[in-house]
């Protein structure tokens, strides 16, 4: 029995198997927006937040912060001070594609979650920040949102309850850094997306200096489930300390890549089997369990490891966004790391020197090794560079760039050494 319980008979709730669920009438036909109506009529805002806390839901955007707790950080309502919710749909972490599938197949679950969150924190407007690359999905969301306004599910006197809430779509334009919450706020304000120093945290001073809460798409989509089926039901799914359904985005050298919905706490080996095993019956070499920023795991490190915050931390990695990349035995880890370093160099916003310069030097050094012109001491120089970058910048991008470099070199050192020129003393001997 794994932490995920009886997952073979698990019934999907985030992406239930219903045809055309993305249409408003189909969603309503399956009990959609009933939970919202009940919440608005029967529950006090504090009770909603209390239920979210009891469910044990942890944010699905990568950091894994408890959602109910985050909601409770919002200051008391002041009549003249607006407050905002931001939904972070700027999903740009390499290897992560779950939010796009959720917006494609079940956008109304997200909208319902947004409205419940608005009610719980007593606010009137949510900005839904979608990355610019998802232009097609933004069009779809706009269409469905227009239908919702027509049906009086959002806007003035929504559902006849006297509440007024708005959902406003914001289209990004291609910057990985906008996934960081403070730079997302800068971007919303129509500036270059430079992250801000925390504190003050968004709940004190967010967009335009007003109290703001920022949640991921999948996190908000869990709210109607928790309020509809009960916090205890939710807390009973999957791993104890990190419960709930989870969208696993599986990619790489597997036979059936794609997004899978299962409880948290699935064994990695089970997930590999579900995804059809390795392509061409090759052996697994490495696994990135949660997007590019998390430390990579060697094949011998995944035995018995489950996909939840605790278990992955013990194994020496992180859950991140649960975007899993499986790599087979033929994978060139130097080429892998070179591409990761290129990504961070390209996406560093340029605000802080250690990150702007450091990511560039990382890419240069790894490129040199990949081209066969690296020296052994370059590996130690890279590790030193990681130390110099980590924790020395405004946001966590520098850390996110340093972790994969450090861990890939440490865990696959032989691969790197083989590509380097031999040390001078070895030649002399």
């Amino acid at each position, binding site marked *: 029995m794994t932490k995920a319980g009886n997952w073979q008979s698990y019934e999907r709730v985030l992406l239930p198997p219903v045809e055309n669920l993305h249409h408003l009438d189909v969603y309503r036909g399956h009990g959609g927006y009933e939970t919202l109506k009940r919440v608005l009529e029967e529950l006090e805002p504090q009770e909603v937040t209390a239920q979210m806390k009891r469910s044990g839901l942890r944010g699905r955007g990568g950091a894994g912060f408890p959602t109910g707790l985050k909601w409770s950080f919002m200051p008391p309502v002041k009549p003249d001070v607006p407050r905002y919710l931001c939904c972070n749909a700027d999903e740009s972490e390499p290897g992560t594609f779950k939010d796009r599938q959720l917006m494609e197949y079940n956008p109304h679950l997200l909208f319902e979650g947004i409205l419940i969150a608005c009610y719980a924190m007593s606010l009137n407007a949510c900005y839904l920040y979608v990355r610019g690359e998802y232009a097609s999905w933004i069009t779809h969301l706009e269409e469905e949102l227009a239908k919702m306004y027509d049906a009086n599910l959002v806007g003035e006197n929504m559902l006849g309850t006297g509440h007024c809430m708005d959902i406003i779509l914001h289209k990004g334009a291609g*910057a990985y850094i906008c996934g960081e919450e403070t730079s997302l706020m800068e971007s919303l304000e129509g500036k270059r997306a430079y992250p801000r120093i925390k504190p003050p945290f968004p709940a004190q001073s967010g967009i335009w200096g007003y109290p703001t809460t920022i949640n991921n798409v999948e996190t908000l989509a869990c709210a109607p489930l928790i309020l509809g089926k009960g916090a205890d039901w939710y807390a009973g799914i999957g791993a104890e300390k990190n419960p709930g359904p989870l969208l696993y985005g599986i990619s790489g050298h597997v036979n059936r*890549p794609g997004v899978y919905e299962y409880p948290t706490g699935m064994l990695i080996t089970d997930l590999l089997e579900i995804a059809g095993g390795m392509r061409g019956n090759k052996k697994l070499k490495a696994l990135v369990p949660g997007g590019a920023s998390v430390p990579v795991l060697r094949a011998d490190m995944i035995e018995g490891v489950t996909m939840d915050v605790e278990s992955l931390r013990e194994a020496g990695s992180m859950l991140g966004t649960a975007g899993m990349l499986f790599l087979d035995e033929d994978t060139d880890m130097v080429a892998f790391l070179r591409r990761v370093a290129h990504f961070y160099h390209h996406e560093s916003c340029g605000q802080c020197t250690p990150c702007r310069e450091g990511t560039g030097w990382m890419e240069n050094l790894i490129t040199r090794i990949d081209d066969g012109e690296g020296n052994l001491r370059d590996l130690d120089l890279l590790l030193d560079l990681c130390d110099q970058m980590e924790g020395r910048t405004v946001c966590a991008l520098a850390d996110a760039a340093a972790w994969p470099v450090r861990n890939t070199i440490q865990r696959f050192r032989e691969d790197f050494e083989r590509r380097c020129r031999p040390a001078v003393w070895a030649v002399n001997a």
Partner: protein
Amino acid sequence: MADFIRNPVVALPDPNPESHFSEEELIFTEDEKARIAGWVSQYPTSDGAVMWTLWLAQEKFGFLPPEVLQLVAVELSLPYAQVYGVATFYTQYFKEKKGTFVLDVCTCFSCQFCGGYDILAYLEEKLEVKRGHTSACGRYTLQEAECLGACGSAPMMQVNNGPYAHNLTPEKIDELLEAMEAGKPLPFVSVTLPQDEDEMGGNRRTDAEAVEGYITPPRSERTQ
């Protein structure tokens, strides 16, 4: 004066650049002004609408040279420097003229190991254009993109900042280019979830063209 100020190593931008558009062209119509006003009303200040307005301007003019940025700045009553700052920060705003078709091929790690670079090389060869450049005929701009969020259907690319094309193979690219040359708009394609296939026997969206998410070994593997 220091020598590097008189003789800068990097060429400074022309202080009076030639405009790409005539004065009659360089306006927003009433209809567009209404849309911009609609976006402005959604934010506490007009700053928030700058990204939407730049998108509109790029759709209208094709790219964002200084005179278009100036137009956006005037329309939103913002300093030119701020609009310039935003337009140059984000990769999807084009600062120079691009081809009729802009092909963004994803080569980030999931696509890299599923043949993204094979696809890029194939396109370079076929269109006779290097990555990051526009072909001599002015039809195609080929770009290497960072993760586009479709790792389950790698390798993939995005066309003109719009539709995605999944599970690319050389044959599929030939078909796509043919359709594009014939002026057919690319359809919205929905990638089937593996679980949907098991439980529902296919894709749940009936308004989209469905593709299976898992059929393409990279070219290098196939040719062996």
